[in-house]
């Protein structure tokens, strides 16, 4: 069976079955990273360009490793030191990259909408590695993979996403994906960090963390950016940590078997304390490990690999 998508722009574009296909295939790709020789020839001769126009460590490394473990050639370009810094528009940069015939462009970009536009205008595969506050589909897929790996299922899980929902592409992608696979989602944030129209998202909304702490199977903490204080979204780190931080008291109230996730990078002491981040409930580093496997699947499928589920 062929994968029907040239690109991966948004979780919103995938069906429930397609999400499960990706998660199932990632299981076998994960095994490759555990081998002594961590490389298979699946994408030999293919070229993957990583265009990262916004700071990123984890996602970029993860995609690069994923491509390399599949034997693709990779080139990475970041905003600083590229022609972007010289004022070249992103479309010109993308057209120039395209002229060098890559098979896939993985793009991270500070504004929403560009990956969709590139997908429309360029013949190669486009994988969205995060565009503004729009979507970050590979993150949501690795998150769902990690939940499924831990709980053995996704349907019926109760996932609480806590923090800056308003500006978070991770929250949007996760909400879109988790709803499709039948999980229940509660978003938790002060009213200022909840998007207008959240009532149409099909999620539970709570402005208080405490009533949710003991109810969720998964507590996903989002990074809260310090700039938001100056933009008047909340009063300061101290009050934020008090009401929305995941600390020892709250960890102790969590449901038996419940886990803690964070897409990183963490603000320790603000949205999460070391008790939560490094404790036994944390599967944060599993998320990172699984990220490589999921991204191998995404590259493999986008570049014409067959859907292969055992």
């Amino acid at each position, binding site marked *: 069976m062929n994968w029907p998508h040239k690109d991966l722009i948004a979780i919103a574009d995938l069906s429930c079955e397609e999400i499960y296909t990706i998660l199932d295939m990632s299981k076998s790709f994960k095994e490759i990273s555990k081998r002594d020789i961590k490389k298979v020839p699946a994408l030999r001769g293919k070229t993957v360009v990583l265009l990262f126009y916004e700071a990123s460590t984890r996602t970029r490394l993860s995609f690069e490793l994923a491509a390399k473990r599949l034997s693709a050639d990779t080139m990475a370009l970041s905003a600083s030191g590229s022609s972007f810094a010289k004022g070249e*528009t*992103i479309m010109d940069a993308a057209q120039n990259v395209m002229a060098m015939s890559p098979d896939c462009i993985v793009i991270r970009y500070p504004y929403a*909408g560009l990956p969709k536009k590139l997908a429309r205008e360029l013949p190669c595969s486009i994988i969205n590695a995060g565009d503004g*506050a729009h979507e970050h589909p590979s993150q949501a897929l690795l998150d769902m993979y990690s939940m499924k790996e831990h709980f053995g299922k996704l349907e019926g899980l109760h996932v609480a996403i806590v923090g800056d929902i308003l500006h978070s592409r991770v929250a949007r992608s996760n909400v879109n994906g988790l709803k499709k696979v039948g999980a229940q989602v509660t978003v938790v944030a002060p009213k200022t960090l909840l998007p*207008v*129209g959240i009532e149409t998202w099909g999620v539970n909304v709570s402005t208080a963390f405490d009533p949710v702490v003991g109810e969720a199977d998964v507590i996903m903490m989002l990074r809260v950016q310090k700039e938001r204080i100056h933009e008047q979204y909340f009063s300061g780190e101290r009050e934020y940590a008090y009401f929305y931080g995941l600390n020892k008291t709250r960890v102790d109230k969590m449901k038996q078997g419940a886990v803690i996730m964070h897409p990183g990078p963490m603000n320790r002491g603000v949205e999460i304390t070391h008790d939560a981040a490094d404790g036994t409930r944390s599967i944060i580093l599993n998320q990172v490990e699984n990220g490589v496997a999921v991204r191998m699947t995404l590259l493999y499928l986008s570049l014409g690999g067959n859907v292969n589920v055992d």
Partner: protein
Amino acid sequence: MWINGGRIIDPANNRDELSDILIRNGIIQEVMPAGGPVPPGEEVLDATGLWVLPGLIDMHAHLREPGYEYKEDIASGSLAAAAGGITTVVCMANTDPVNDNASVTQYIIQKALSVGLVRVLPVGAMTKGQQGKELSEMGLMKEAGIVGVSDDGRPVENAAIMRSAMEYAATFSLPVISHCEDKNLAATGVMNEGALASELGLTGITPLAEEVMVSRDVLMAQYTGVPVHITHISTKGSLEIIREAKQQGAKVTCDATPHHLLLTEEGVRTYDTNYKMNPPLRNEDHRHALIEGLRMNLIDCIATDHAPHAKDEKDLDFDLAPFGIIGFQTLLPALMKLHLDFDIDFSQILACVTKNPAKILGIDGGELSLGSRADITIFDPEATWTLTEEMIVSKSRNTPFLGWTFTGKVVRTIAEGKIVYSAD
């Protein structure tokens, strides 16, 4: 010139009948029932089967000259206006330099006269440099030819300065045109605030940003007695505030754009920057309210907010591209669409681009009366056509109406008795 046998629709004179018109020296000499004898030797323009309308007045446009000639200039803008059946263009002051003194006003008027197609009437800035701090030289600009004052897209934030500006403008009988937007509330927004903006990951502009300022300006008009014209309203709430103010007898008028009447935020779904304008396109609920406002005569005028931007600028990310779209050539077909789709009397809609703006601005034109300016638009109500980039005479082509099929086409535009546009 003798315009023969057309259906004359002239809201100012409550006329809607087959008539002939005689024009001499740029003036309408006679309007009489169709079928009369053509004066010997007179040039005849056959309008059989066509509509003959007062030349349109667009009370809100940006011609970009001086300063931004790469987007549009007075010549290209005049040509586009003529092609749209617009014989009077009221142009906003956000040029470079800003039209905040008589020299800039004179430059614009002289330039338009040398182009010689349509009448260009500038609006002066309310405050120097549109900075919202010091009053501009409104009186001197009035003598140079401005027809109103406005800081348009940089609305006066300080209420005390707004009050002074309104009273100072009234001193010179200059209408005040207000773009209502609380810049702090609108902040970095790029589209309508709501579920769609949240879904697309774009920052919203709350309807409140407009409504808070509409309230302020309406209160100012009521308190000072100075009339205020609220331009390009986009929300149900604004309309509601204006409705109440009008009921209480306040001197408040308003306009809406064809795009806010015909389009919604759904267009933004593809991140097409031709759907990025300020105020932003709202949802169907707001659009519906505007259409009903038009039907109920709450909306006095329709203005294009013609805002040309070069392709290089509009091709940026949705977050970064400038606000605004062009609108001259689609104005009349858009009005026709409103008439056909929503069954609103055409004459009533036509008043919004003829006699109503003329009255609000205190200018002549917008009517087909004996002795008035021979500004006439001849319109084929049956013709259907599809807008392509090649048809656009503006320097810029930023319009969401590309590819739209319209019913109704401008076939001739006559300004002061001179044919300034012919479709064939």
